[in-house]
């Protein structure tokens, strides 16, 4: 039984490596074979080609993320019309049904951003920067947009590369040139979150730092009180459940009746400690 996962995030992306770990765990548990595939960068054209390649191999099930329904739609529809069951994960909950997917596991990036924004506004934030380490990656842009909507106050996007030294310097620069900034939202814990914490600490100011996704060091900062919280999509579930559902579907024709929301789940100081170890192993 072959199940193919085609996602828009690379295997070396901290977030997606957890999805991949989840999928592999499920494959082991359910006794199926799973292949995780992704384009080299956030590239919708390449991703649609990968879906086509997967369809050619006529797997028992196809699991895709849908950050751009226009670009990926035809390929997904081709899979569906070829009789391959499709489950969507992570992004695309709104279009998943329309394209013929059986169900969606995951949480919309926009909604996750929105809830984080609301939480930070509640903590007293007025002026925020949103550290985006990959501008143009639509799913990251959605996180920022959602955050801006939930936060309500003034939000500036700070574009960076994913070099920690550069991110730290840029956050420090932003903090020192605009003293009104009281909130930093990072779009990835290990790439952007950790340097943002370091910069905030060095600035000597009282700044709330929050981040999407988890990393052990960032969680440690939450425990230590240097960071506010992390938003956990529990993306392990996106990989695990989708593969598991697909395996069950292939064996017994079973499929849950509705979408499964995997998050959001805010990890604050009280919960952080217990998550650190799991995060260091790539499960959370």
């Amino acid at each position, binding site marked *: 039984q072959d199940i193919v996962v085609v996602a828009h995030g690379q*295997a*070396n992306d901290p977030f997606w490596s957890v999805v*991949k770990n989840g999928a592999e765990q499920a494959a082991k548990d359910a006794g199926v074979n799973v*292949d*995780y*595939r*992704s384009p*080299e*960068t*956030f*590239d*919708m*054209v*390449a991703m*649609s*080609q*990968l879906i*086509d*390649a*997967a369809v*050619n*191999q*006529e797997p028992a099930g196809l699991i895709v993320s849908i950050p*751009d329904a*226009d*670009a990926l*739609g035809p390929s997904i529809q081709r899979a569906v*019309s*070829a*009789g391959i069951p499709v489950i969507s994960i992570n992004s695309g909950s709104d279009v998943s049904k329309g394209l013929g997917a059986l169900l969606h596991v995951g949480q919309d990036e926009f909604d996750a951003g929105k809830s984080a924004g609301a939480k930070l506004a509640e903590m007293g934030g007025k002026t925020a920067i949103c550290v985006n380490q*990959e*501008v*143009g*990656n*639509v799913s990251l*842009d959605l996180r920022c*947009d959602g955050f801006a909507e939930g936060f309500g106050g003034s939000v500036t996007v700070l574009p960076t590369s994913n070099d920690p030294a550069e991110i730290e310097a840029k956050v420090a620069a932003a903090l020192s040139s605009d003293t009104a900034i009281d909130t930093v939202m990072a779009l990835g814990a290990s790439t952007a979150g950790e340097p943002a914490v370091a910069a905030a600490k060095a600035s000597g100011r009282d700044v709330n730092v929050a981040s999407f996704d988890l990393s052990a060091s960032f969680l440690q900062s939450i425990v230590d009180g240097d960071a506010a919280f992390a938003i956990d999509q529990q993306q392990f579930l996106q990989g695990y459940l989708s593969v598991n559902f697909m395996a069950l579907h292939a064996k017994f024709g079973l499929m849950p009746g509705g979408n499964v929301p995997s998050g959001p789940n805010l990890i604050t100081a009280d919960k952080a400690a217990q998550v650190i170890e799991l995060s260091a192993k790539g499960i959370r």
Partner: protein
Amino acid sequence: MNDTVQGAADERLKAEPLFAQLIKRPELGAVAGVILVVIFFSITADRSMFSLSGIINFMTPASQLGILAIGAALLMIGGEFDLSIGSMVAFSGLFFGVCAVTWHLPLVAAIPLTFIFAGAVGALSGNLVIRSGLPSFIVTLAFLFILRGLSLVGLKWATGGSTQLRGVREAVENDWLAPVFSGDAFPGLFAKLADMGLVATFNNGTPKVPGIPVEILWFVAIALIATYVLLRMPVGNWIFAAGGDRTAASNSGVPVNKVKVSLFMLTACCAALVAIITVMDAGSTDARRGFQKEFEAIIAAVVGGCLLTGGYGSAIGAFFGSIIFGMVVIGLTYTNFDQDWFQVFLGGMLLIAVMFNNAIRKRVTGER
């Protein structure tokens, strides 16, 4: 060896087998690499990779890359680089999207406009390179950033804040020009072939391959034209000369600057063509389109035997180089290797393909 007029036999020449004569040409060296990669995948990959649909599947990205790579190869032979190709794909994609979606222009206006626009940007960077005397690397690098940034700004402006512009497919759906730049060619033929059982079908009876994607046709056509231009047109000679030694070429009367600027415009237009095709196919464009394509195009050209220093190479080489690259990238998904190993695998295959092709050529031609 069609350039040869052989006089009387010369005792200073050994007889040379036809095979050696062929593989000496930069055009054909890359074929050895293609063969190696095909052999590798026929052993390790799923059989469906070399089915008709599998071949079309890897030829589609190879073609999109190849159109860029041929432009890049010509420019490299002419002695310059263009690092802004990838950003140009995003930028002209945005321009085309805006023409089609925001301004509701028909394709017959939108497409020429996009080419003119891209050509103008190419002419600009080319002129900057020539006038300033700076290396094209640094000038086009600046354009890489500038065009990428403008794409982002433009997208936000066109969509009112999003980094994704949608609705192109709907806007061009019924345009008579659309089939030339998007979708599959010869659908009728393939449907018939499927009925006759010559093309595999899905369970529901639709052919697995609805036609040949237009980019493949464009790719082949451009490769042929570029080869003809390089080998059989005066301007081809000028390109080689300009890249081989610009002072010598200019001293011999080659209009080096014009040649170089035209090449920059050509590369930009290749990028625009890819942008038009992919935007129409995907129905949308975003700020990351074409990311790092400049890099891949240069890889394909170099794998195909172009020298980075200019003055040597071929369009056919870039053609096969793109196929090698496309095959390796997509091929892995037909094998059982873990995705974690993808990059190791990609690097290894590239290295082996190039080394193999190089070793064969040396062995055959007796260079050392």
